[in-house]
């Protein structure tokens, strides 16, 4: 009849514990993210690719720009991937070690992707938050500018810029940064419109906080979830973008290389029978893009309150 006293106390204890250990929004998201198997596998894959780009150089037996002249012309049978010769991924048609080149290319592609996304996110978020917060005519003009810029095919303008001002990594970043913040600005503005009517913003306005401070301290932190999601989804797009330019031969310059440039070289020589020259860069390209997309999807499911 009477419930076990110890058990009741145990339940009460655990209830208290549960109360004390309230979970934050971020902890919730973390739990949801790690329940998503595809996202976790992708995250591990991504860590692997990053480790390859960072530490692969230590494993390479050759420098990326070292040319083995004895291999040129006989690459199809002498440059085969093998552990014994130290060319783990074989050599390319110029007698260079493909392993070292792939390490370098992966590193540059990842760097371009991350920095490009970072620039886009910072500029886009601030722009969108400002437009959304001020509203009215300011908002109208600012977003109209975004509309106008969006309808220009920027790839062509970027190529024009690369031709005129010379090819350099800096121009590439500038061009990518110029294009990619537009989407982010729209998303940030949409979110800001709902946030700015919340009570805490009203309090901030009532206590006389300056608008610039309200945007930076009160609005941007609340955009963080969605910003992280789109940043993750932007990185693979940036990598594709850079690869596109490099594929045309207008991006990274020799002897430096990127995955796009490597795929380009590989696709030109695959007719001679050494498929490894396209296979390895292609594998790392596809793996990276794949992983980023899945991690981004996982983050969106974890952080986006709409789909809960």
């Amino acid at each position, binding site marked *: 009849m009477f419930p076990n006293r110890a058990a009741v106390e145990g339940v009460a204890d655990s209830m208290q514990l549960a109360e004390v250990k309230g979970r934050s929004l971020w902890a919730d998201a973390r739990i949801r993210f790690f329940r998503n198997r595809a996202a976790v596998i992708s995250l591990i894959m991504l860590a692997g690719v990053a480790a390859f780009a960072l530490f692969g150089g230590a494993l390479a037996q050759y420098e990326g720009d070292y040319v083995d002249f004895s291999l040129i012309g006989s690459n199809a049978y002498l440059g085969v991937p093998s552990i014994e010769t130290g060319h783990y991924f074989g050599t390319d048609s110029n007698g260079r070690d493909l392993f070292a080149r792939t390490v370098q290319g992966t590193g540059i592609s990842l760097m371009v992707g991350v920095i490009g996304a970072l620039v886009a996110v910072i500029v886009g978020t601030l722009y969108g938050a400002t437009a959304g917060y001020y509203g009215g005519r300011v908002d109208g003009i600012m977003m*109209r500018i975004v*509309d*106008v810029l969006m*309808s*220009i*095919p920027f*790839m*062509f*303008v970027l*190529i*024009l*810029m*690369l*031709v*005129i*001002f010379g090819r350099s990594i800096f121009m590439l970043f500038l061009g990518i940064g110029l294009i990619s913040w537009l989407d982010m600005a729209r998303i940030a503005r949409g979110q800001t419109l709902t946030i700015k009517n919340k009570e805490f913003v009203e309090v901030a306005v009532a206590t006389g906080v300056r608008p610039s401070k309200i945007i930076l301290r009160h609005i941007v932190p609340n955009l963080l979830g969605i910003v992280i999601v789109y940043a993750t989804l932007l990185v*693979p797009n940036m990598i*594709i973008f850079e*690869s*596109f330019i490099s*594929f*045309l*031969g*207008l991006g990274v310059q020799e002897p430096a290389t990127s995955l*796009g440039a490597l*795929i*380009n070289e*590989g*696709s030109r020589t*695959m*007719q001679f029978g050494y*498929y490894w020259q*396209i296979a390895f860069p*292609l594998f790392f*390209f*596809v793996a990276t*893009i*794949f992983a980023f*997309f899945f991690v981004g999807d996982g983050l969106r499911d974890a952080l986006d309150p709409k789909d809960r």
Partner: protein
Amino acid sequence: MLSFIVRRLAVAIPTLLILVVLSFILMYAAPGGPFNSERPLPPEVLANIEAKYGLDQPFWKQIVNYVVSVVTQFDFGPSFQYKDRTVNDVIAQGFPVTLTYGFWSFVVAVTIGVSLGVAAAIKQNTWIDYFAVGVSIGAQVLPNFVMAPILLLVFTLWLGWLPGGGWNGGQWQFLIMPVIALSTSYMASIARITRSSMLEVLNTNFIRTAQAKGLPMRRVIWRHAMKPTILPVLSYLGPAFVGMITGSVIIDVFFSTGGIGQFFVNSAFNRDYSVIMGITILVGTLTILFNLVVDILYAWIDPKIRY
């Protein structure tokens, strides 16, 4: 409706002007003229040539001349590289090619993408659905410059079924690989958007009402669900168009189809500014016009938009 179109045109025209002026300023800012070669020309000859191309005039006069001739006569001036041709000749040669395979790619991407998405949504959680989702995920990581070499490897080098490049007046064998390479990733995106949009629409009240009053499923889908489903797809078509026109550069380079992309890249390496500018402006104009058409279609289909 008319005032809506007029208002959209009022935005489109300044956009175009900005594009023209922007690319002219970029070109003007370029260090070194198109006639600076390794063997310097005698100054009198150089002055003559520059006078012929109007390069000796002050900046504002050049820009006004350029804008006026582009806007009023669609004249992009002479090419700096091909001695006997104007930019218009170059475009007239390459553009029909790009238009042909671009059109087919667009048709393929939209029809297959929409059908796949609708089929996946109606038969949710069956093999059709899994197939469609699998294809759209797979195609996302295969942009056109990855797709093109893979296609070439399989169909030309291994199987030997299709020619590896060229145009040959647009025979169908020469069209297949460019169209597949260009359309795949957009087809995948369209399928994904259609699927999620259709799923959302199928859960709404008016669809339930339509089913409750005993309409056959086929009629519910076509008469009621299709219209709201297609709206997000429609707004994706603008970016897809830009992507395809950009991708055509890869297609031209890779399959040697001889479209404007090939001229664009060649000119980029030869610093043939007038051709680059001409193609940039042409592509920009097309994009803006296309977006205009999409906006008008959207306003026409969506009853919630008041104009």
